[in-house]
């Protein structure tokens, strides 16, 4: 697999993970990375360098919207929330990934038990 394809898969899965999380509640960058790490048992990990460019890209596309807000510890954090455009994007993205895994499963039997 070329690096380009791998990077596209990583990027696509990152977009889906972020959109899915933000569909539940607005979160700031660190919380997004933390929750993705925790909820995937560490299988998906975001670093500073992978998270923020992706968030900014998604913000530019109008899928998420950032705004500064004070968190529970009284610190200003840039929270991201899903926009209507992002919400619309979520269902087809889920569908694409489902189809992708089904295709991979029928080829290589990679689905979980």
């Amino acid at each position, binding site marked *: 697999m070329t690096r380009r394809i791998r990077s596209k898969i990583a990027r696509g899965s990152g977009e889906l993970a972020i959109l899915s999380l933000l569909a539940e509640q607005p979160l700031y960058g660190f919380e997004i990375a933390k929750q993705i790490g925790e909820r995937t048992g560490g299988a998906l990990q975001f670093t*500073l360098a992978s998270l923020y460019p992706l968030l900014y890209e998604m913000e530019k596309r109008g899928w998420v919207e950032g705004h500064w807000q004070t968190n529970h510890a009284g610190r200003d*954090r*840039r929270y991201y929330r899903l926009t209507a455009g992002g919400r619309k994007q979520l269902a087809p993205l889920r569908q694409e990934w489902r189809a992708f895994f089904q295709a991979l499963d029928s080829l290589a039997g990679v689905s979980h038990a």
Partner: protein
Amino acid sequence: MPDWRKVVREHMGNLRLPPETREEVIAELASHFEECEDNAPHERPDTGELDVHAVKWRRLARAIHSAKREEAIMNRRIKSLWLPSLANLAAAVALMLLFDHLNFEEPGIATFSHVAKAFRLPWLLALPMLGALGALLAKHARGSFAQRLIAGLAPSFVWLVVMVTVGLFLILDPRHFAGVSLSDFVFSTLGLVVLSALALLLGTLPFLGDPQREVQE
């Protein structure tokens, strides 16, 4: 606790973005380091996050610059709105000139006695295809509903602007439009703007459905 904002600024100070945007990025990245530090003894998303030397700052700056720059938005808008609209407009004008040349009637302001001039029937019949062309190009470029609609109806918007301008001149200085009454003008506007919009809309409609929703369904 280090002054994370200062640390980030040292590494990202040359980020080529408007100062306000750059400061916001620096503040956000600094806040990420603060959180990492607060959570460090127990948990953190990435074990190497607090080591500022481990961050590939130059690569990060490039990625953020690329994600934040407005050119990409402009390029996308050009592809999804302006190019389809211009293609539609150019085709509509070319067809109008062709039909006028082949036919039929001299272009100009119509009168009630020259119905064919106001309602260029062959041209109107061809317009749904052009509406479809504009909307299809916008759809291919992942244009939004509004962009597909505008691209499909682009020629009518241009005629509208032209006719409003002509109308203003007609009202302000009628001497330049000898023999043309306001009713003739309205009649022409109806043919050129309203009917053309309806014809274009006919072709545009099939491409207004939301492709994302189609997948969803």
